[in-house]
């Protein structure tokens, strides 16, 4: 919660004018008081001592009220002393050189002390103001350091400028073409985007029609413009505060630039990753696509060259090789294409309400051929809620997991598929009765191009599980691999549950458990 009350605005062009009246009153009273004290003692004290008491009075006034009051006190002390205490008494004339020197010293002391004091006071006030400015800057930079996007930066900047200066403001960010963008909220009424753009392009701060325009310059590029609304003339113009506002702007610009750099760095990492993927892809393609191709070319070549020498059974055999290997390549290229799409960071989910049972069903249907000798046991309670997922991609996840289970468990062994709704999430599992996942491989198997078993034994590019991970994570879910005690490998997917869709028809409730 932000405090509604802005703390005391720091802004003030000059130091506040304090009332000097009490100082002058004391400047008049001090010599009179000295006179009253000294008068009864005039027979015992010499003129020099009496002069010292006046000096003391002047000094006290100077130390308390500064130069003006002390000069009043000293100038009043001189005639009073001359009249009452310096011979001839009751006359303003002074005969003794000693007393004249004394009075001159007094006036000089009053002057010097007063001005010294005034200076130190001004210094102290300046220091206090600087401290306030510094802490304002600190607060700003502290808040800005947590900002993660341009909008937050704009909000923080506007809030701080309001708190510190008591004025309204607005931050305009730039788009990729260096055009200023009006914020969707917190917009100042009366700001003209075109003139802001002109000032931004001139790169110099400008005051115009109750608005102060401050282009924000980062260390490399201009980041936007800050517009402050205040009545003319701007109270901070030319003063120390003007530099302060520059620092403010600088901080904001730096933060915006930091965000920009962070975005660029992220992009660069993504690019590097996809570059690495491409390289791995190329080396993988050379092996995994060439193997079936070699077989196809071999078989087809034999069919053409030695057609007459082959028996019907042999021909059939070669034909099957061509078909099987081509289908294998087709599946492989499909996966490669999916992975390329997904790793380009542009996963286009087309989510909709989907029944898990249906997705499991169509995955099993797609794998019909692979599952001929494998009993598949599905345990999916009727009460499973609909999930807000991309049905096509989630089917791909299940297909990959089931294929994986088929590949890495003995022929004829069953495959278990389970589903379970929990608080806020839905759990899906695919488990086999194979040797399980080797210790320490539970995370690695989700890496791209990683294969658990030496490549000659199993076909595939090691993309299936990486695809699963990418898809599940794009849904805000989680996928984990582990072993079931004494059984085999188990892959568990956790998908977040959304509030179920509403049904307008009464019929639906009657038929649902």
């Amino acid at each position, binding site marked *: 919660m932000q405090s509604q009350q802005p703390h005391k605005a720091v802004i003030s062009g000059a130091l506040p004018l304090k009332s000097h009246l009490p100082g002058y009153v004391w400047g008049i009273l001090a010599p009179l008081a000295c006179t009253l004290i000294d008068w009864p003692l005039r027979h015992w004290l010499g003129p020099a001592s009496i002069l010292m008491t006046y000096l003391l009075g002047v000094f006290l006034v100077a130390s308390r009220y500064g130069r003006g009051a002390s000069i009043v006190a000293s100038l009043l002390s001189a005639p009073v002393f001359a009249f009452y205490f310096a011979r001839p008494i009751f006359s303003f004339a002074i005969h003794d050189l000693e007393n004249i020197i004394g009075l001159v010293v007094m006036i000089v002391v009053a002057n010097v002390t007063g001005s010294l004091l005034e200076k130190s006071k001004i210094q102290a006030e300046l220091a206090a103001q600087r401290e306030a400015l510094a802490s304002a800057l600190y607060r700003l930079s502290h808040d800005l350091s947590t900002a993660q996007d341009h909008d937050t930066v704009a909000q923080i900047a506007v809030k701080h400028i309001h708190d510190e200066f008591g004025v309204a403001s607005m931050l305009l960010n730039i788009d990729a073409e260096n055009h200023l963008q009006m914020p969707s909220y917190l917009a100042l009424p009366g700001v003209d985007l075109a003139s802001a753009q002109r000032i931004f392009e001139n790169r110099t701060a400008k005051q115009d029609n109750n608005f102060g325009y401050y282009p924000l310059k980062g260390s490399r590029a201009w980041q936007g413009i800050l517009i402050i609304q205040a009545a003319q003339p701007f109270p901070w113009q030319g003063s120390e505060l003007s530099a302060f506002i520059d620092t403010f702007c600088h901080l904001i610009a730096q933060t915006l630039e930091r965000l920009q750099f962070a975005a660029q760095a992220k992009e660069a990492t993504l690019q590097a990753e996809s570059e690495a993927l491409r390289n791995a892809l190329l080396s993988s393609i050379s092996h995994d696509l060439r193997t079936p191709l070699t077989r196809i070319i071999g078989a087809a070549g034999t069919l053409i060259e030695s057609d007459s020498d082959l028996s019907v059974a042999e021909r059939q055999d070669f034909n099957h090789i061509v078909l099987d290997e081509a289908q294998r390549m087709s599946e492989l290229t499909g996966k490669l294409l999916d992975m390329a799409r997904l790793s380009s960071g542009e996963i286009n989910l087309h989510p909709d309400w989907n029944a898990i049972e*249906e997705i499991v069903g169509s995955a099993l249907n797609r794998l019909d051929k692979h599952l001929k000798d494998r009993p598949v046991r599905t345990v999916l309670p009727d009460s499973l809620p609909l999930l807000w997922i991309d049905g096509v991609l989630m089917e791909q996840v299940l297909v990959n997991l089931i294929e994986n289970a088929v590949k890495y468990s003995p022929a004829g062994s069953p495959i278990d598929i389970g589903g379970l709704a929990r608080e806020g999430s839905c759990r899906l599992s695919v488990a086999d009765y194979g040797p399980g996942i080797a210790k320490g491989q539970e995370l690695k198997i989700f890496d791209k191009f990683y294969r658990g078993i030496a490549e000659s034994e199993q076909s595939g590019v090691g993309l299936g599980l990486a695809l699963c991970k990418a898809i599940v994570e794009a849904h805000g879910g989680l996928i984990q691999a582990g072993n079931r005690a004494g059984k085999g490998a188990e892959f568990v997917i956790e998908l977040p549950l959304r509030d179920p869709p509403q049904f307008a*028809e009464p019929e639906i409730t009657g038929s649902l458990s």
Partner: protein
Amino acid sequence: MAKTDPVIIVIEDDPSIRRFLRTSLGTHGFSVFEADTGKQAIVEVGVRKPDLVILDLGLPDMDGVEVIKAIRGWSAVPIIILSARSSEQQKIDALDVGADDYLTKPFGFGELLARMRVALRHSIRPQEPSQSDIFITANLKVDLINRVVSVDEQEIHLTPIQYRLLAILVKHAGKVMTHQQILKEVWGPSYQENAHYLRIYMSQLRQKLETDPTQPKFLLTESGVGYRLKIW
């Protein structure tokens, strides 16, 4: 007998696929004509009056969906589309403008023949409003006149909506129906956004008609596209 051979037009820009289709379909008793552009295809369909059209959606000169629209302007000839993988939306668009079925490349010839048989059967016996039909496949029997559904001779009680959903799939048995098409026919045009209705009712239907709802025999899901009632 050649006169009675069903006439097929293959619209495909790749010559080897055209050749493979021409040869294979020729040996199965079809007379095959070819077109390699959308414009030529529309002309061919108009001139040849084919019994079935096989259309590749990725034509060089025009969008396959536009070709379907043009043909549907004056002909109800069955159209089977060939499309690339992972372009569900394209398939849906083509089906919604009137294509009868689709095959994803690469496809097997057996699959194509099965789809063609279904499409041809539907065009020979167009759905009449009277629907004087009893639909039987494997152990599923749907009596569309008396509105009686039975599995293994056991009558299954369905709610009106469940029945309507099943009846629509039966009417188009063997063909894929998009989510939108089903929603529109069962619930009406204002329910196009309510895909979740379809999921729930389909799940209920499977529970009532299928031995194992997770491994359905009849009510197949065409993921991302729609549903198909399989004929055994």
